[in-house]
């Protein structure tokens, strides 16, 4: 029987993969993509919890919708930022962005 745990573990795995990507990747867009993976992981959680813990109300789905909306906004701003920084530096590699000491 597939239960809540299975779905939460799926979410956790996706989350971990995204986290790894954020740390290991150097292309700013790739990092943004990794973050999207993490947000998707969260959505899997929300929908699964909605299904198994609270099937009558749709709070989890609602939360997931908000996450999706916000993620869309975040990505659009993020990509605009990346394009604007690319215009200045001709690079999207994070290692090149070290005008300030870290």
């Amino acid at each position: 029987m597939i239960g809540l745990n299975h779905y939460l573990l799926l979410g956790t795995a996706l989350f971990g993969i995204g986290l790894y990507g954020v740390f290991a990747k150097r292309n700013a867009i790739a990092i943004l993509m990794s973050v999207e993976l993490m947000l998707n992981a969260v959505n899997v959680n929300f929908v699964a919890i909605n299904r198994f813990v609270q099937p009558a109300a749709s709070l989890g789905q609602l939360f997931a919708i908000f996450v999706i909306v916000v993620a869309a906004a975040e990505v659009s701003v993020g990509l605009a930022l990346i394009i604007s920084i690319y215009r200045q530096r001709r690079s999207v590699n994070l290692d090149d962005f070290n005008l300030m000491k870290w």
Partner: protein
Amino acid sequence: MNLDQLVFLAISGFTITAALAVVWSRNIVRSALALILTFLGVALTFFNLGAGFLGLVQILVYAGAVAVLIIFAIMLVMKPDPGTTNPTTPSRDTHYLGGLLAWLVVIGLGLAIGFTTWPSLPAGPVDDDAVGALAQLLLGNYVVAFEAAAILLLLAVVGAIILAKGADKI
């Protein structure tokens, strides 16, 4: 192994493989395409969970818009040699640290989730009119968040235009 498990395993296997491809591919375009597959996998998960509307939202927004935007941006900032567009960090420390951290988080959360006994509610019938229920919530108790999200989208549009145009004249 019954059908339920088979479907779950297939979908999650597909999703996780696609997600791994996102972070392992050295070619950013392939990463992005793998990301689309991940999105579709998550959408399938939603369908499997009886959240059809959400699955479709997932496809529409993530696969149809977000992923396309990402690919679009990739093409605007593309380098000639696609095989090196998505490097992993050259610093081994950061790389291993990232991997280690990810493993720790996965194992830690996995254990935490595994050892938890959830409120023992039966997985009851799925609400058929999810859209209606969501609409009630959105325009009822969560109307503030709804309005804020609307402003957020406006803000994102204006902000993205401003940033992408940079210092050029409007």
